[in-house]
């Protein structure tokens, strides 16, 4: 089995696994980090160390990191929390969000929910309106397009840094100061960017930024939301309870998970450049090899468009998607995101880029990782080429 689905999730890095063990072992540091006794303080110290490690990768302060159960929760918290906080203010006009059609489902679904429900508040509900920007065929939504969509009611822009299906890098670093100037909040889903690209929130005035550990060789089920302190981004909590995490997110802190995320982000910081070189190099090699096939199209990117090093999305003309995937059982790849692959619908991201249903369906997302080898790539490319050729030959419609 060749695993090329690192964008869906990664294995634990061995260093992360080792870091977690002392907090998982039956005889380890297991106390509740909120407990005020020796073992509790010890757990708390581990949580705070991890907070600093996560902050360090993105140029933030530890106090700006709020633990969540993953980027899905971070995105939900950022959007709902910011709108609800603002909704509590007297002004009762519509709240407006600008986002793009190629965001992750958890952003889009949250937006749709907000559109449908509005935001509740003491003074009754407040309606929410959302603009879903259509990217160009290359996958990019330019800062200028975002600015053009702003209205006086726009409270927040949500734009992902790196798209999880095609890897396109949005120009959030250029966008951020423009929005800051205009007093509009910027939320960035960086689940696929962290550990792949340098991120420095000390220089880039993003207000809210979502992170997930399991995309960065950390454990599944833990994530974080960066909430800027200066100027302070204000949120209403979405999980109520004991008032953990400065009141922004209640629930017992999962020490081993948090320690794992910290270790993963620490490793990512150390290895960032080496990882990018290694993974990006193999990704480019894979794309070169696949071009031995006629009529293959790379999805996203193009002249002057940055693509994250771990992603390659290719459409294969003349083959049907389900058979393509079924013909590659030794290859763990994905069509679209893991979330939507169960539904077998063609990727909404590729369709937003203008691909027709058929071609969107006949696409594979290859995502590479730390453990990927040149031999993996060679073998994967060989299999794909062989199977695409075979399926094309089998097709009564194919004319080479």
């Amino acid at each position, binding site marked *: 089995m060749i695993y090329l689905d690192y964008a869906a999730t990664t294995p634990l890095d061995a260093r992360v696994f080792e870091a977690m063990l002392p907090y998982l072992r039956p005889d380890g540091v297991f106390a509740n980090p909120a407990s005020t006794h020796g073992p509790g303080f010890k757990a708390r110290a581990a949580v705070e160390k991890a907070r600093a490690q996560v902050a360090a990768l993105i140029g933030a302060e530890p106090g700006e990191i709020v633990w969540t159960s993953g980027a899905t929760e971070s995105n939900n918290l950022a959007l709902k929390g910011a709108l609800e906080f603002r909704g509590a203010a007297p002004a009762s006009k519509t709240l407006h969000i600008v986002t793009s059609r190629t965001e992750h489902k958890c952003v889009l679904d949250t937006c749709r929910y907000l559109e449908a429900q509005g935001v509740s508040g003491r003074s009754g509900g407040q309606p929410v309106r959302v603009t879903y920007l259509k990217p160009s065929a290359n996958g990019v939504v330019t800062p200028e397009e975002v600015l053009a969509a702003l209205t006086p009611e726009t409270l927040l822009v949500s734009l992902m840094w790196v798209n999880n299906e095609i890897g396109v890098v949005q120009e959030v670093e250029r966008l951020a100061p423009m929005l800051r100037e205009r007093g509009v909040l910027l939320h960035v889903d960086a689940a696929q960017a962290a550990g792949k690209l340098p991120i420095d929130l000390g220089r880039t005035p993003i207000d809210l930024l979502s992170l997930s550990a399991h995309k960065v060789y950390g454990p599944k089920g833990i994530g974080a939301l960066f909430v800027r302190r200066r100027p302070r981004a204000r949120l209403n909590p979405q999980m109520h309870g004991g008032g953990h995490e400065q009141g922004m997110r209640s629930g017992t802190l999962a020490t081993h998970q948090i320690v794992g995320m910290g270790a993963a982000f620490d490793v990512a910081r150390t290895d960032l450049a080496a990882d990018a070189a290694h993974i990006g190099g193999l990704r480019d090699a894979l794309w070169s090899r696949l071009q031995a096939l006629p009529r293959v199209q790379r999805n996203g990117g193009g002249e002057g468009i940055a693509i994250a090093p771990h992603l390659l999305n290719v459409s294969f003309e003349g083959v*049907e*998607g389900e*058979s393509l995937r*079924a013909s590659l*059982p030794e290859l763990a790849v994905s069509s679209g995101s893991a979330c939507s692959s169960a539904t077998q619908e063609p990727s909404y991201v590729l369709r937003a880029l203008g691909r027709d249903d058929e071609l969107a369906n006949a696409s594979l997302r290859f995502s590479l990782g730390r453990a990927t080898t040149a031999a993996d790539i060679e073998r994967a490319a060989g299999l794909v080429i062989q199977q695409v050729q075979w399926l094309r*030959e*089998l*097709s*009564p419609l*194919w004319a080479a």
Partner: protein
Amino acid sequence: MGGLNMEAAEMEMTNPFAYSAPIWQRFSAPFRAGRFADGTAGVVSGQAGTPAARSVLKLQLQFVAGRVADGRFQAYGCPTSIAVGAWLVEWAIGKSAAELRGLSLAELRGTLEIADDRAHCAVMGEDAVLALLSQYQESRI
């Protein structure tokens, strides 16, 4: 997987998608895929399905003395539709046109264990056989 000469056991192992065994087996190693050389004597074709529906099946049967002596199929579509093509050719060999007319959708679905949500693949197979039979009628081989 025409190109991968896998053993049955290995094939099973590599069917993670929960296709039925008869579908997976025919999809993985379809016999008689392809088409006859142009001008091969006694060959009649039938096609069904549309590219828009992402399913097209083309059957070719070679009649010798009123009976199917050999056959080929081509398919564009999901593994089930490919398996339908492979099975139909296999099933057709040795039969007369009249016998082909007796194709039972129930048998086709039963043999390949085609679930309800893929019933259309079986129907496409039947359509292809019917199209072939009407060409056979015309060509009066």
